[in-house]
């Protein structure tokens, strides 16, 4: 038995990565408290005054925590950027301007419906006046006339309500559809380098949860907002028309309440964003627990996971308490501001009636208005609330468009297909180059395998050669032109990075194959499928090329999914392929069936294979051994074996 080669990573790296281990290790393993002491412990036995003060102290701490969460949600350290609220106002304004006539119609219909609703109490007041004047014995004519007027008003209100609600739905859904389609267009324009490096989690949250929140606000909050503003404004008009004196109490108390409402609206977004964040944290933890249930059981992590869930809930409860206290402050003020006027109106009305300044009908109408007024104002506050949540989400959606482009296409087109990298350096973090001046010229039609330990820079080299990222220094050219100067549509026909993610899209077989050359005819699609031995089974599908694939539709086997992925590349037809095994956990059981399909794809192309398995390297024309950001060995299998270096040692360990 040959002893394996001693490839100690610690000695290969310039310094031990664990050098600062002692500084970052935490010796004290009592689980850290998730809440500050003042929030976690409430003294229920203290005197009332102390507890009252402690309550406000806790409220202030919760507010600081919520404001911090909001600030970090608006300026994420990692992930995609976030737009400014001003951009959102501009964007929403633009959506409404494009539908100016519809907005006008919605406002008008709402105004008419509200006016009709507000006319009824006036008439009921008249009726009371008529009854008082006739000492109960109202003339039949008067009753008939007033009744008919009310019937007319009710009919008008019905029609206008229908029109207002329906037009609002047309407006809301139209604006929403435009907004989400805009978002998806910006997602589909994200720079290639960004897409390849970022994790998709942030983007998934944005296109699901944030689109949902935006949808709530665009669909419901905007029309409701229009309705509520119109109703509140008209209510004052109606009350003043009825009796300006009896309108005064409501007006005065509303003005008193307004600063509180404004303060609530200023504070509320932080509370809602924080609550939302704590719930998604709860869900994330639970889905980790559920998906990793077996790991939890294997490692005896039950207590750890339960404690983590309890911690998440404790944090969430604090966010909820903050939101609840904010709302209580608002409700307390609003309930008083909107229910006290009815007491004042009654007293004031009685006094004014005794002096002959108002009629009993006016008092009745004013009292009815008081009961009708609370609801639209309450709704106005709540829709502003929802609008703010929607705006927070929309800033995140519009932020996607703020990612700067990573390349600008020039006008030069390649002459020939030689891919040459010179003096390549690259850093993911400034000052930490992972490649240190690599030179590599591909020979047309060759198979080049790149091997090396993880972290050596071999995947980065592959990404530079495929034009995913641009090098910090040096250049990668194809046919004499920098890869980064090519428009994506041209680049894709020169070189492609094959990560072998066998993602099957929701769409037809055709949609799944023609990606690179949209608009190809069915014959081209069939030819591509035939080349990878997939046409036979595709034709047995219920609808052939039109069969829908992807989640919820026809399910492909892993091997079939891989064949579809390969057919895409056949159709794209780039002359150079970069295969990254690291990101392709090929199922060994399907690989056997795919050998034919794969070799059909590779035939006649230049191939760079970032290899995990030495067998891949053995079959290649040349092998580049990358270590610590440099190519340390380059040559054919036999040459490298003769050189008796690192590769040779590894190969002997593998095969002996």
């Amino acid at each position, binding site marked *: 038995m040959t002893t394996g080669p001693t490839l100690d990573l610690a000695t290969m790296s310039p310094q031990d990565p664990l050098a600062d281990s002692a500084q970052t290790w935490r010796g004290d393993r009592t689980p850290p408290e998730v809440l500050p002491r003042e929030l976690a412990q409430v003294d229920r036995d203290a005197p009332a005054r102390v507890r009252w003060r402690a309550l406000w102290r806790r409220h202030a701490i919760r507010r600081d925590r919520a404001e911090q969460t909001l600030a970090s949600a608006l300026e994420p350290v990692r992930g995609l950027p976030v737009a400014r609220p001003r951009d959102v106002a501009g964007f929403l304004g633009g959506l409404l301007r494009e539908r100016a006539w519809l907005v006008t119609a919605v406002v008008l219909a709402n105004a008419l419906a509200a006016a009709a609703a507000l006319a009824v109490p006036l008439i009921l007041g008249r009726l009371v006046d008529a009854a008082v004047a006739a000492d109960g014995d109202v003339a039949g004519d008067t009753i008939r006339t007033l009744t008919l007027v009310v019937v007319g008003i*009710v009919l008008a209100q019905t029609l206008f309500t229908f029109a207002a609600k329906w037009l609002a739905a047309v407006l809301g859904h139209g604006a929403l559809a435009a907004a989400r389609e805009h978002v*998806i267009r910006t997602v589909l324009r994200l720079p290639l380098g960004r897409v390849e490096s970022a994790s998709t989690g942030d983007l998934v949250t944005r296109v699901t949860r944030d689109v949902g929140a935006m949808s709530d606000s665009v669909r419901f909050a905007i029309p409701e907002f229009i309705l509520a503003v119109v109703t509140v404004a008209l209510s004052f008009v109606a009350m003043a028309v009825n009796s300006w004196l009896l309108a005064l109490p409501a007006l005065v108390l509303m003005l008193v309440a307004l600063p509180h409402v404004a303060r609530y609206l200023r504070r509320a977004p932080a509370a809602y964003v924080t609550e939302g964040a704590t719930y998604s944290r709860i869900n994330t933890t639970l889905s980790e627990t559920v998906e990793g249930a*077996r790991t939890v059981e294997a490692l005896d992590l039950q207590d750890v996971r339960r404690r983590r*869930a309890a911690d998440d809930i404790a944090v969430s409860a604090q966010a909820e308490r903050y939101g609840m206290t904010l709302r209580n402050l608002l409700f307390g003020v609003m309930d008083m501001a909107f229910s006290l006027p009815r007491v004042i109106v009654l007293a004031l009305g009685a006094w004014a009636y005794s002096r002959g300044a108002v009629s009993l009908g006016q008092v009745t109408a004013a009292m009815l208005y008081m009961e009708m007024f609370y609801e639209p104002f309450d709704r106005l506050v709540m829709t502003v609330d929802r609008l703010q949540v929607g705006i927070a989400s929309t800033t995140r959606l519009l932020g996607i468009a703020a990612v700067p482009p990573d390349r600008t296409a020039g006008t030069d087109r390649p002459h020939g297909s030689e891919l040459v990298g010179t003096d390549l350096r690259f850093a993911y973090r400034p000052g930490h180059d992972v490649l240190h001046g690599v030179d590599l010229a591909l020979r047309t039609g060759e198979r080049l395998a790149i091997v090396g330990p993880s972290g050596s820079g071999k995947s980065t080299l592959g990404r530079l050669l495929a034009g995913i990222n641009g090098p910090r220094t040096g250049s990668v050219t194809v046919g004499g032109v920098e890869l980064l100067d090519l428009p994506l549509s041209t680049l894709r026909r020169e070189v492609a990075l094959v990560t072998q*993610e066998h993602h099957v*899209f929701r*769409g037809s077989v055709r949609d799944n194959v023609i990606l690179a050359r949209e608009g190809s005819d069915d014959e081209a699609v069939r030819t591509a499928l035939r080349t990878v031995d997939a046409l036979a089974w595709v034709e047995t599908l219920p609808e052939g090329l039109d069969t829908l694939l992807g989640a919820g539709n026809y399910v492909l086997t892993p091997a079939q999914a891989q064949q579809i992925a390969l057919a895409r590349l056949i159709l794209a037809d780039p002359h150079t392929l970069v295969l990254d095994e690291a990101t392709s956990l090929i199922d060994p059981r399907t690989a056997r069936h795919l050998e034919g399909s794969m070799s059909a794809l590779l035939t006649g192309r230049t191939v760079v294979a970032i290899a995990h398995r030495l067998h891949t390297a053995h079959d290649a024309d040349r092998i580049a051994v990358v270590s610590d950001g440099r190519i340390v060995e380059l040559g054919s299998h036999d040459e490298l074996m003769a050189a008796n270096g690192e590769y040779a040692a590894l190969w002997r360990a593998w095969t002996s």
Partner: protein
Amino acid sequence: MRDYPPLVTAWTDRSAVASDPTVPDTRSPGRLLWWFIRNQGLLFVVCALLSLTWVLPGATAPWILGRAVDEGIVPGDTARLGVWVLALLAVTVVGAGSGVLYHTMVVRSWLVALYGTVSLVTHKSVQLGHVLPRRVPTGEVLSVSGSDSDQFGAFLEIVTRAIGEFIALVVVAVIVLRIDPELGAVILLVAPLLVLTSAPLLRPMGNAQTRERTRDSELTGRATDIVAGLRILRGIGGERTFGSNYAVQSQRVRHAGVRAGGWQALVESIGVLLSGLFVVALMWLGVARVRDGQLQIGELITFLGYALFLLQPIRTFFFLTQKATRAFVSARKSASVLGQPDPWPQDREGRLDPSGPLVDQASGLWVEPGELTVVVSADPDASAALADRLGRYLPRDVDPLSMDSDEDARGRAATAARRRAEEQRRTIQERDREQADRAWGVTLGGVDLADVPLEEVRRTILVSDTAAAVFAGTLQDAVDPHGRCTREQAEAALRAACAEDVYDITPGGWQGLLDERGRGLSGGQRQRLVLARALAHDPEVLVLVEPTSAVDAHTEAAIAERLGRHRLGRTTVVMSASPLLLHHADRVVFLSDGAVADRGTHDDLVARRPDYRRVVLRAASEEVPA
């Protein structure tokens, strides 16, 4: 009185299940809902009372106003007027104060139910462990916590509100019947009719809304799909195709939404029409009775006021039936998740002796204590199944049916599907219990794994499979989740698994944060981190399934060498066909058709068995030819 977050102890202690009041009653959906109410205790009663005092001003204000007009304003009696104004002030202040208190208590009640459900789901999931995915699809477990929990909160709120408003309704009924029995009867009978009249329209509206929701979730699916495949779309192309597919679906959602909006507009405007006509009718009748001298002017005002007020409680009862239906659906799903029993027998008391050999009767595997044994199999499924047996894990042979395909689905097909799913879950439950009860067929030191408590098996034997999860948290927690290691032990585990680069790329070292599921690490990094964790756990018997499948050859070679050194003298079984690992094995076992075909060193087997050579060689050639 209960407060949030609630303390939930259910299923934390296997022996105390029967006596724990936080264990829910899952025998039926109805019982579960009733349990939620009982579980709230005094809080529920307080909520109901506060909801009554909150609506009482609305219920009494029209009457007070009428009295004030008749006794105070019209006759000009300032003293009587003063009494009624003060009465109005009193109910108004009580109402406003109750509003704040009711809100506080109802939030409390809602969150006790919501957080309680989240805790119950968490506790149930960790109690069942690997048995959970056999019984219930993951998505269903998550939706109980994510959305059903909210339904329970909403249910409790609407029940307390309905109780309060029902009492208010009785108060109003007494008032109006005493003023004028005939007119009162008209009001009390017509108001509910009005709300019910719009009921026939609710079904088409509901259908339209369901269609909108279905289309919308398909749209969200498309958006997620685009993001999931974005590397392909930006790398190879297809932005136009999928962008326009999305736009087409987005427009379908818009059409469905506008249609649902139309129905909703119709329902609402008919509501406006009916309540408007109700007011007209009252006005007509009321004035007629005033003319007859049967009604005073203030009493007319009272009636008109109640015409507006009465629609509210009736609307609440309407919501109550809707939300109760939803809560019932949620309760059915939750009962099915929370009611899953744990299959393991509780009466075992034996101990395992890790100094003895580990033996699997089905395959004939014999693992010597203290050795590094590598199991090679032509069929990766066979070695994975063997690893499951060695750790006393139930086989991965079932995928449970889902019960919540569509919440809104009604009719015979949906009921049949649900019944089928329930039936299947019960069958699996029984089979699990039966499997867990009989002899397991794997012995450690001569003791069958079924003769000792499951905890003893888990403590002694650790199986780290290919699907092992990485959890969010600090790197230190990821390697040493129990906080049992010294720094030196954790470092040694990290080095043995060649996972130093994970430390290096995590800003903050041991305290650096990993994202959920280790997102942001490469597949190889995650795999090495899982290996480091298993080594740091330091079990008596360690079973590793394909521990280096995502690792490059350089690193694999280093792991192969360090692994044996790290586990020196401890029993270790590795399922792998990698020659780099096989070199370092004390013993290699060759599995053919799920049974041991040969055993020896790697060199022996290479020399004497062509079929072994083929498997080991194929493991090397099974790659993409380049």
